[in-house]
């Protein structure tokens, strides 16, 4: 995606980040056991690093990722936060 080429390479375009967050393996059990359970709904929240770029025309390009480093440094990155609910596509 051309508009995302200036996003920090360690981060993802925001749409891909959302796709990744929604990619969960949510089945427990097995056919052999005779029981398979599925998650109907999942609520999650996490700190978020954002790369929000604005071009000359005021257009915003969004990139983001979960925290990249957990090591404490002199200047810590800014952590925003994201909370979301996932529901099974029927």
């Amino acid at each position, binding site marked *: 995606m051309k508009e995302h080429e200036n996003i920090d390479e360690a981060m993802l375009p*925001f*749409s891909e980040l959302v796709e990744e967050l*929604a990619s969960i393996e949510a089945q427990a059990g097995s056919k052999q056991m005779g029981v398979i359970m599925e998650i109907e709904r999942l609520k999650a929240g996490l700190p978020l690093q954002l790369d929000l770029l604005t071009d000359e025309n*005021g257009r915003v390009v969004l990139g983001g990722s979960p925290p990249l480093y957990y090591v404490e440094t002199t200047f*810590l990155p800014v952590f925003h936060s994201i909370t979301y609910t996932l529901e099974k*596509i029927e």
Partner: protein
Amino acid sequence: MPSSNRAWNLESFLDSLIVELDKARETLAVKAINKPLTYAVKDMKLEMQLFPSFDGKKVKFITAQPGQTGASKIAFQLGSITDQQIRKTTKGPSTKDDLSIEVVEGVDEETIDSLRKMGVTSIQDFEQIEHKNIDLGKVTKKKVNYKKLSNLLQKAKRSSYPPSIRRAGFSLAKDNSVLEIEGENLAVDQTFKPVAVFNGALAEIDFSDKKGMTIKIGNDQIKKNDNELIVTLDPFTIFKLKLNNPK
């Protein structure tokens, strides 16, 4: 080049966020075709560390950078809504007869801004407010000449469907003859009675609508050649015809 140190406005941010969520939704919907157990994002809350600023006209934001303290926390809660709710809470799409106020010549930035704040972005929006007899000057507390604005908008709207004449001909009779005109977009303003001047004298308009008009003309007024007809269809539209009379 895009920069993270440039201020952005809420509208651009939300536009971008919604485009990103739409892309993700489309990808997940395609994925659901092949993978039966797929999840969609039902709602999302984004809490951001920002520095808001106000330049006297618009509020803008800069995302907090590492090491900066004292940022404001702003939360965006996005929930999914049904198509029925969308229809209830949003304006219908612009029709081809409608025009955005931004493209109308002669309307200054300040007026466009004060109208936008009231949700008026097109000529149709403006007309709806006018029909409800709302005094925009009092509501906005701005010294804007809304009568002049209304005229500018009507003029712009009228120029998007100009009149055209397909046929014009005399129908001669013993006493009074009539001049019949056929065309498109002629007398479109129901509140205005068109005025016709034939060879310099006021002529009576017998009938007029958007597809045609009939004008009564005395036989003695009709010259053999070079008859001139000037018709004012509405405050913004005048047409002039040269007619020959093949007696």
